[in-house]
C-alpha cells in the first residue's frame, strides 16, 4: 500500500491539493479585493501607492517598543517565518519540486544551513505554542483554528526534518506523510487564518495607503 499511497500523494493528491489551494486562494483574495472601498474625497498629502508599497515591506519589522511578551512573539515569529521560508525555498529537494512544477530553479543552500533553519523553525513553533497557552492575551484570542493551523504548519516541518535526518519511520512512510501534510496545509490554507500568507500584503498595502495618502512616512 505504501507505494500506492506515495504515488497518490505525488500525483492525484497533489493535483487536488493544488486545485483547492489555487481556487480557494484566488477566490478569497479576489473576492476580498472586489468588495472595494470608497476612495477618499479629501485632498491627498501624499501617495497611496508609495505608502502602501512601503508598508508592505516595512511592516516586516516592528518599530514599536514592546513588552517582554511582545518581544518574544516578534522574535519567535521572525525565527519561525525565516526558518520556514529558508527551509521551503532553499532545500535542494524543494527546489527540484519547484523546477518540476514552475520550471524555475535557483541554487540550494548547504544541508547544514537547512538543518539549522528547520530546527529553528520547529523550536520557534513549539515556543509559540507554549506561549499561546501561557500568555493571557493569546489564550483569550485563540480559538480552535489557531491550534489547527499550528498543527498544519508544524507537521510538514516535523516530517520533513525526520525525513532528512532518518528519524522514526522509513523513508517512504515519511515522504508520504511529509507530502500529505503539505497537501493538508494547502487545502486548509485558503479557508483558515493561513490565508494571511497572501492577505497580509493586501492588509499592509491598505494600512500603508491610508498613511501614504496623509503623507505619513511610517
Amino acid at each position, binding site marked *: 500500500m505504501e507505494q500506492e499511497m506515495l504515488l497518490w500523494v505525488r500525483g492525484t493528491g497533489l493535483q487536488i491539493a493544488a486545485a483547492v489551494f489555487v481556487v480557494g486562494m484566488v477566490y478569497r483574495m479576489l473576492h476580498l479585493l472586489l468588495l472595494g472601498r470608497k476612495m*477618499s474625497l479629501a485632498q491627498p498629502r501624499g501617495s497611496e501607492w508609495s505608502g502602501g508599497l512601503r508598508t508592505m515591506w516595512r511592516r516586516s519589522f516592528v*518599530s514599536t517598543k514592546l*513588552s517582554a*511578551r*511582545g518581544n518574544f512573539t516578534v522574535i519567535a515569529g521572525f525565527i519561525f517565518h525565516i526558518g520556514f521560508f529558508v527551509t521551503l525555498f532553499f532545500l535542494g529537494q524543494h527546489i527540484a519540486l519547484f523546477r518540476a512544477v514552475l520550471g524555475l530553479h535557483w541554487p540550494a543552500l548547504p544541508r547544514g544551513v537547512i538543518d539549522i533553519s528547520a530546527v529553528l523553525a520547529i523550536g520557534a513553533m513549539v515556543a509559540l505554542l507554549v506561549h499561546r497557552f501561557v500568555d*493571557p492575551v493569546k489564550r483569550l484570542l485563540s480559538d480552535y483554528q489557531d491550534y489547527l493551523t499550528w498543527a498544519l504548519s508544524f507537521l510538514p516541518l516535523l516530517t520533513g526534518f525526520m525525513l532528512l535526518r532518518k528519524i522514526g519511520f522509513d523513508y517512504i512512510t515519511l515522504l508520504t506523510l511529509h507530502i500529505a501534510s503539505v497537501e493538508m496545509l494547502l487545502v486548509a490554507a485558503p479557508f483558515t*487564518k493561513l490565508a*494571511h500568507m497572501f492577505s497580509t500584503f493586501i492588509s499592509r498595502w491598505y494600512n*500603508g495607503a491610508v498613511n501614504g495618502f496623509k503623507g*505619513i512616512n511610517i
Partner: protein
Amino acid sequence: MSTSLQNGINTLIGQIDAPTASFFTSCVHCGLCADACLFYTETGDPKYTPIRKLEPMRRLWQQEYTFWGKLMKKVGLSKPVTDAELTEWEPLVYDSCTLCGRCSLVCPVGNDIVYMVRKMREGMVASGHAPEGLKGATQRAIELGSPMGVNLNTLKAQIKHAEKETGLTVPLDVEGADYMMVLSSAEVAEYNDIIGAVTRIFKQANVSWTLASDGFEGTNSGIQIGSSDLAAELVGRIVRAAERLKVKYVISPECGHAFTALRWEGPNLIGRPFPFKVIHIIELLDELRSSGRLKTEGVDETRMTFHDPCQMVRRGGVIEQPRNLMHMVAPNFVEMPEAGVQNWCCGGGGGVSANERANPLRNQVFSRKKAQLDAVNVQTIVTSCSNCRSMLLDGLENNHMDIEVIGLTELVAEHLADNAEGKAS
C-alpha cells in the same frame, strides 16, 4: 430611524469593505496589538486587546462575506451577534479605545485596527449601544452647536475679551478672507487665550482671516460616537460657512479629532470634495515660519516637552511642524521617550473624555503618560490639542504632578517679535 440591533447589524454589513475583509482575513491572533494599547499595558487585562474589541464585527464579516461563514450560518452553526453581546462590548469599543491608532502601527500583518473600530462604532451607535456621555455630547453638538454647550454669545464675549487684551480687531464673518479659523469648544470655553494669540500672530504675519458666526465649532462628536450621519451634519455647518464666506482655507483648531473630522473625513462625510483646503493651525504657523512671516524674539528657558496628539501625528501626519516651532522659542525642549508617531495617547481621545463612565479607567491608564513625563523631568508640557490639554491637566492633578500645560500656538504668540508687526509681507 430608531436604533435597533437590526439597524446596527445592517450598518455594520454596510461598513465592511475590502480593507476590513483583508484585515480580518490576515489576523493571526498574535496579540501584539495589546502591547501597543495603553488600556492593556496599564491594566494588564487581556480583554482590552485591540483586535478583540472587534469580535462582533469579525463574526459578522465571517457570516456575511466568507464562503464557510455563510455556509455555517445557513446550517445554523454560527453564533449570531446579539444585543447582550453588544452591551458587553460597548465599554470595550468606547471606554477603552481613544482611536489613538498605535495598534494599527504595530500590527505585523498590517491591520489598521483603528480604521475598523471607527466602523464598529457606526454599528454600535445604530444599534443603540453608545455611552450616555457621548450621546449627550453629540446631542448638544447637534442641538446647541457645541458639545460643551458654548454658543455664539459665548464666542462673542471671548472675542470682545481678546480685542480688549490685544488692542486688535478679531475678524468675524469677513467675506473673501483667505483663511477661516475654526475653534474647539474647549478653546471657546476655557483656553480662550488662543483667540488673542492667533489674532496677534496673523496680524504680524499679515494673514487675511476670519471667524464665522455659523461655523466656529470644530469639535465633532459625531466622529467620536461613530455616526457618519451626525458627523456630516456637524461638518456641513463649517463647510456652509466657508462657502458663504468664500475662503480659500479652513484652519483646523488645536484639536486632534476636529482635524481628522475636517481634514480627512469631512469631504467623505458630505460626499463631495471641499472647495477649500483644510490646514491645521500648527501647519499654518510652520508655513509662516519657513516663509519668514512668523518672527519670534526671546526664548523661554524652561525645560519643556511636547505631547503629540494622536490625531495629529499617527493619524494626521503633522510631525515635524510643531518641533520646528518649539525650537524657535524653547532651547530646553526635550523629547519624551517614544515621542512622535509612537507617542502615547493622553487617554481621553476618541470621545473617552466625554464619557463619564470611563473616567476611572482613564485615570488609571494615565500612568503611561506619567511614566513618559517622569523620564524627562520637565516643568512645562506643550501640546496642540485642547482635549489633550484638558486630559493632561486632569491627569497631572490626579497624580499630584506640578507641571504646567500650555498650547503651542499660545507659546509662539508669547514670543512674537513686536517690532516685526506689520513689517512682514
